[in-house]
């Protein structure tokens, strides 16, 4: 009974849904504030100290706004996409090892589930654009699937590269064992630096941020697949995207920066594992924001071209190296 209650709390409050909803909004604030800083602007300022509550205020405001469904839209599908998106992103975060080496959900092969979830987001995006029955969302949906063809292989390859050591030593594809193998040596400090770079680019594409914000390119197709969403639905989608941002930053931190492992190897500090995890995620987020600030949007054909000409070969090379090098060292 007590154990059930604790499990429920773990799922709903910490480190589950509520924690990640707050973390997602906080990450959006960091992203906006740092982006503004890089552009010599102020960024969010008035809601709360330094505008800290701005994303939350936006969320509340959108919840109160009028909710419009376009006349020709596929109503059930159109209305359920935001809920599915939020559910999917909340499901994904349960796998992250926020406190301790394993997440709320942890089983053999959960890394594969995580990569599948990443692909599901794109399917939702496609369905959202498709069910809007409008031209801009249609183009946006088409682009998002095309973009998936470009970045999915590098993303999976970089994730697998991070898991290469555990696969070989333990035959395990579990996030928990990946975290544990990094207790003395983070995987970014080595061959995985290349994998980390590929992961960052692919994450940027997955999150639809510059230079890969092609599916929702504002100046081209208004808001892409999001164009017809308004009110509560838009609020839920935005929250889902914020949580997805936190999730991908966390995944990067877990796979490459050692997740909740202490900052200095072997250093058992006063910092609890949660704080270490969040700090590492923020480092990933700041790198993503710098990428966003320093580039312009690519065209969809250029993106796919770039992905297949450079990103895919490099990621496969990276995977090969990740498999070969530890074996060489062992030999």
């Amino acid at each position: 009974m007590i154990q059930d209650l604790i499990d429920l709390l773990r799922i709903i409050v910490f480190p589950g849904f509520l924690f990640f909803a707050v973390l997602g909004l906080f990450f959006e604030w960091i992203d906006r504030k740092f982006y503004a800083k890089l552009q010599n602007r102020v960024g969010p300022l008035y809601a709360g100290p330094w505008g800290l509550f701005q994303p939350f205020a936006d969320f509340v405001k959108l919840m109160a706004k009028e909710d419009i469904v376009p006349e020709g839209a596929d109503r059930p599908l159109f209305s359920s996409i935001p809920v599915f998106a939020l559910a999917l992103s909340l499901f994904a975060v349960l796998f992250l090892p926020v406190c301790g080496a394993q997440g709320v959900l942890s089983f053999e092969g959960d890394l594969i589930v995580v990569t599948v979830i990443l692909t599901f987001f794109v399917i939702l995006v496609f369905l959202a654009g498709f069910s809007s029955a409008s031209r801009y969302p249609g183009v946006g949906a088409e682009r998002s699937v095309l973009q998936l063809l470009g970045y999915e292989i590098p993303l999976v390859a970089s994730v697998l590269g991070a898991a290469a050591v555990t696969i070989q030593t333990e035959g395990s594809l579990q996030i928990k064992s990946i975290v544990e193998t990094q207790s003395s040596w983070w995987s970014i400090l080595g061959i995985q630096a290349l994998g980390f770079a590929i992961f960052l680019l692919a994450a940027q594409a997955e999150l639809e941020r510059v230079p890969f914000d092609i599916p929702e390119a504002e100046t081209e197709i208004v808001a892409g697949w999001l164009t017809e969403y308004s009110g509560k639905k838009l609020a839920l989608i935005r929250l889902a995207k914020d949580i997805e941002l936190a999730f991908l930053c966390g995944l990067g931190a877990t796979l490459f920066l050692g997740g909740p492992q202490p900052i200095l190897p072997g250093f058992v500090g006063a910092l609890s594992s949660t704080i270490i995890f969040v700090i590492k995620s923020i480092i990933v987020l700041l790198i993503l924001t710098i990428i966003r600030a320093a580039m312009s949007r690519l065209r969809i054909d250029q993106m796919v071209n770039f992905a297949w000409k450079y990103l895919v070969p490099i990621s496969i090379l990276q995977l090969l190296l990740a498999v070969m090098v530890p074996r060489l060292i062992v030999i």
Partner: protein
Amino acid sequence: MSVVDIPIGPQHPAIKEPLNITCYVDGEHVVGAKLRIGYNHRGIEKAGEYQTYIQNLYIAERICGICGIVHAFCLTQATEDIIGKEIPKRADYIRTIGLELNRIHSHLLWLGVAAHEIGFDTLFMYVWRDREMVMDVIEDFTGNRVTYALMTIGGVRRDIPQEKAERILKVMDLLDEKVRKYKKMCLDERTIRMRCDGVGILRKEDAIALCAVGPTARASGVPFDVRADDPHAAYDEIPFRVVTYDTCDVTARLLVRIDETLESISIVREAIKRMPSGPVRIRVPRVVPTGEGVGRTEAPRGEVIHYVRANGTERPFRWKVRAPTLANLLSIPVMLTSRGDYVVNIADVPITFASIDPCLSCTDRAIRFIDVSSGKSWVWTFSQIKRMYWRD
């Protein structure tokens, strides 16, 4: 896949002013485009017929929020053409400085907008931050940031005293450095080049046939610049280079504008150096004698023409404005149509359209009536309108 039409505008984030481009799209490729303007007709020319010449100066300035000095200058030029009096030399130089400061601010504004169109918001913010310097100089010199009220018939209203001239020169030095940095940035930044090279091609013969003007024409290798071809104000005494590029694409238009900004900076410096002393205006009568006058100058976007017909009263009988965007709009459908190896993507539409630096509030003056249900369209002549609506 069949051809789908995607409407861009009249309300669209890429287009800051109302205009409709209907793109016919096959997959991601644009196979044709149709333009519709006329959402922003303000009846300025008609308003000008009811106001005196002096009042019209301030209306002319509001034709365009960006090149206000240019329109006011053109109207004074046309009016002075009718009156037929020489204006003092110093006024000519101050006008030149005003026109060039206007050009610098307009080109920097355009660079920011273009960066935003290709999703490069950081460059957009940086350019607009540095544009504030020239805005501050203009405010210092004319008394306001946007509506300058600098020109008057018979000269200019404000002199540039020594200390202001020094302030202008100081800012010009700062800007020179910044603009050179942006030029380097635009040339070296991979993602910008990827988005601009070979996009929005307007071949030289098309540019000539479609009467493109300004930077759009010069980027297609047509060395047409009213400042050099028909020198007015002090342009005949200040040496400058007509910037042309011949790659005919968006990159060429980008570089033409950046180089012109540098050129403008050197013109301002030169004008301040050579400025003669003396009065800045002459008194002219309020009543303009009967006659016709034309004023033309090179606005940041191309050639502006003002035509004024006077009938011996305080008010013009007819005032006609031809803004440069009207001339450049015709080349948009050509740039946006894929043909042969030249492919236009949907993603290229905003930057291609922005590359002519459209200013629609300047442009919308002619009205064509269209019956939406039958598709019939017609134009009413002046006498027809008079017969139908005027009662006297």
